[in-house]
């Protein structure tokens, strides 16, 4: 397992390098170049030249890339000339928000979705199954911002139970200090997440419930409850864990609509802004971060898979 992890980490480095090269090249294809993107179309050629010289944009691309990479390896994401702040400062202001929202939202979604999925599979084609399926379709069928707006309308505007805005703190501790303000964004997030996970769990349990080993467990005299929790549950989780790992980059990518509706600028919002303003440094940083998280998610999925399924052993 250790050897396997080391190899996977080496892979990570290679993949990240390739991704950065591609992104770097792509982002330098912005019309007029990066300097234009920063200074705007009204800047004079002289201004562009001076600026390029000052910030090193006149050097060949591979030199620029080398310098950028060197800085990155030192943990320096660069300086955002557009927003006039270090890139890391911008990310650190957004990332904790996304993490809190995504993890609590996914957690709540799993907590509701998995038991519901199991229940649906056990009582498949019953009224309950159809009702939950219907709600689930509503969950991932309706646009998030619409769900968010509805919740705000009902619970904040009409009933005054929860605030319409998410916490404004930028540290994890600060956000968690205001749990009431988190309820609506998390609920919005979880509504979609639950739909996804209950659906996955339902089909996973249904795949397992017809397996021969389930009949064997019954033939031993095990009760339905024992069969479900002692045999089917673990086998059903195998596919869920894989999906969960693959879902990680999506989770981090942020739920931009929720962020907008609840005025909660996280990673999704940050990337959206960066793309809108052709903010090259910021986009590069976020891409690298997303790459790392994607690979990490895959790795976690594989490890979780190996933990749950003894047939999978990495050497």
């Amino acid at each position: 397992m250790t050897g396997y992890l080391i190899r996977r980490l080496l892979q990570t480095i290679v993949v990240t390098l390739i991704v950065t090269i591609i992104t770097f090249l792509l982002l330098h294809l912005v019309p007029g170049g990066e300097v234009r993107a920063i200074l705007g179309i009204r800047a004079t050629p002289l201004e562009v030249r001076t600026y390029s010289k000052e910030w090193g944009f006149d050097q060949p691309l591979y030199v620029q890339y080398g310098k950028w990479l060197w800085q990155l390896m030192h943990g320096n994401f660069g300086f955002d000339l557009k927003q006039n702040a270090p890139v890391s400062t911008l990310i650190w202001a957004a990332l904790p928000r996304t993490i809190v929202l995504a993890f609590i939202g996914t957690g709540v979604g799993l907590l509701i979705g998995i038991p519901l999925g199991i229940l649906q599979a056990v009582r498949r084609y019953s009224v309950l199954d159809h009702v939950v399926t219907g709600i689930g379709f509503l969950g991932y069928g309706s646009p998030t911002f619409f769900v968010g707006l509805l919740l705000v309308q009902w619970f904040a505007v009409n009933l005054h139970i929860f605030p319409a805005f998410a916490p404004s703190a930028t540290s994890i501790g600060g956000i968690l200090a205001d749990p009431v303000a988190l309820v609506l964004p998390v609920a919005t997030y979880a509504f979609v997440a639950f739909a996804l996970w209950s659906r996955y769990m339902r089909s996973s349990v249904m795949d397992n419930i017809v397996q021969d080993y389930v009949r064997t467990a019954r033939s031993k005299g095990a009760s339905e409850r024992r069969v479900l929790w002692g045999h089917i549950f673990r086998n059903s989780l195998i596919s869920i864990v894989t999906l969960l790992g693959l879902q990680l980059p999506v989770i981090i990518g942020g739920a931009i609509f929720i962020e907008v509706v609840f005025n909660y600028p996280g990673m999704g919002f940050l990337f959206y802004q960066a793309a809108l303003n052709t903010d090259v440094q910021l986009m590069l940083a976020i891409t690298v971060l997303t790459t790392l998280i994607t690979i990490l998610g895959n790795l976690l999925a594989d490890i979780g898979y190996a933990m749950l399924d003894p047939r999978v052993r990495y050497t």
Partner: protein
Amino acid sequence: MAPLLEVNDLRTQIKLREGVVHAVDGVSFQLEPGETLGIVGESGCGKTMTALSIMNLLPTGGHIAGGSIKLNGQELTTLSDEQMRNIRGNEIGMIFQDPLTSLNPTMTVGKQIAEAVALHREVSREQAMDRAAEVLDLVGMPRVRERIKEYPHQFSGGMRQRVMIAMALACEPKLLIADEPTTALDVTIQKQILELIDDLRIRLGMSVILVTHDLGVIAGRADRVAVMYAGRISESTDTETLFNRPRHPYTEALFQALPDKAADAGERLYSIPGLPPDLVNPPAGCRFAARCRYAVDRCREEEPQLVSEVTGHEFRCFYPVGPSERSDTGRLATYNEAPAEAALAGPGIGDVLLDVSHLVKDYAVTKGAVLQRRVGWLSAVADVNFTIRSGETFGLVGESGCGKSTIGKLVVGLEKPTSGSISFEGKDLAKSSGREYRRERRNIQLMFQDSYASLDPRMRAGTLLREPLVIQRLGSKQEQLKKVGEMLDKVGLPRTAADRYPHEFSGGQRQRLGFARALMLQPELIVADEPVSALDVSIQAQVLNMMKELQHDLGLTYLFISHDLGVVRYLSDKIGVMYLGKLVEVGPAEEVYLRPAHPYTKGLLDSAPVADPGAEKAKVSEGVTGELPSAIHPPSGCRFRTRCPFAQAICADVEPPVQRFAGEGHLAACHFPLQTAVGDAVTASAGLPE
């Protein structure tokens, strides 16, 4: 003594979308303590549903609609779920067909067995584990203390089935239900498992219900047999009587369809025409009438009841076959339509068509996800030599993992040999390339085991049959379609079948379709890899007959790969026996069967169950003990020595030379053959020349 189990007029129904299936329809039988009852029948006859009904483990939609099941006088059908759970695994144990899928893959075998104990006994976790170790030891598991912590995938098929048996017997039930316990296993392992069940039955004083489709398995193991057809018992009596004096035409037909009964390879097998009836709307009258060669109008209108002429022998037929009413032979001659008896003369045997020489196939065993370092070789085929003459059938037998399918793949060109040559009509196939290669490929075609998996489910039969012609760009569309129609005629499928999808065919029809696909390019050699092993006996006979007929008509040559010795013997002129990549014996079919020279061949033949209770009882040989070693580190010298009863020091040091034995082209590689060699020893490196 009171019977242990009494089943009376059991009716089990399964609700499906298309209607209610009367899976078990009025089945009654009794089981005495210590007795083995065999329930035999083809797929869909209700034998498994009968077994599952006793356990009340019916699939979704299934329920017991009527009748009674009494275990030791206690009615089981009226028990609550909880009371029934108390019976399952405690008083009745059950083992299933596929030991891999029947075990929970994420739980150690120890825990799975301990669970069965803990469910029915007031024991601590440790005590339950101790009991698990005890029963594993009982079923002959080596190194129990280590293996108890392993997961099912770490065991071989035979060992997994031992785990299943241990689990079923952990609470010492009075009744063991074995549902096709050995169908997924090799013959050598099958014999070991059947012997184990028998042995445990005596030691633990259990009764056994043995459900199987294999008449050979029943012959050697059951005291009494119930033959099921279309949800009913059509005949039941003691094993001896059933095999010697069957009264029901269905039972008789089943025996006649067995290839091992047709000793003379020229004889055509009797095949039961048609398919079993649809159990959603069972036919009026006798359920077998539609396929019965003796059926008269009365059979189709009125349903015969179970009657007995001699106590203990019941059958459901108005006009039973057998000695007490008519003479055997007269009857057969009168009613048997001509083709069933018509002998098929073998086509003329010509020159050498396929010459396999020093064939070697090693697969690299790799480690690591990125660099794929090679850590060893799996020796799948090791220096194999044989020739097939045109018009001949060469049967290749051996346990799974012996390399027989790899040879098939090498011959059709799906794999490249590591070394050695395969010559077809004198040309080395490995050396041809490009267009020439493609043209030569036409002459060798593959027929698959599982025609369901090997036919594209989204293609109509007509398209499937036309595809080889399209790929090889042969003829215009009209000509191709004409050929498709002709081919359907040849394999006995209606022309309308061209518009159907593979799933719309029955198993036997699909195998005909698979055969037709292989024949489309008018090949000379067909490599048939286990073509009938997924089929019921009666359907198997239909396919085998068709293969024989077409061989005769089209002058085909077969490389017939199978684990079923009876089928191979019936079809083959020559037989090759493989063991762990080596061809250990080759020779004329009859010679190899009757006078095997290699101990492995003999062991294999002794392991194969024969549908003859007398012969089965008379068997003293153990068959082949132990399990197939790994092909990554095959044993030195003779590869069979680790399981050979005659092995001596020399067997480990020196690879046995190939020697000639009585009979034309009868060769075997053994230091201590079962008969004296007649020819000069040919060195091992020289292989098996003709």
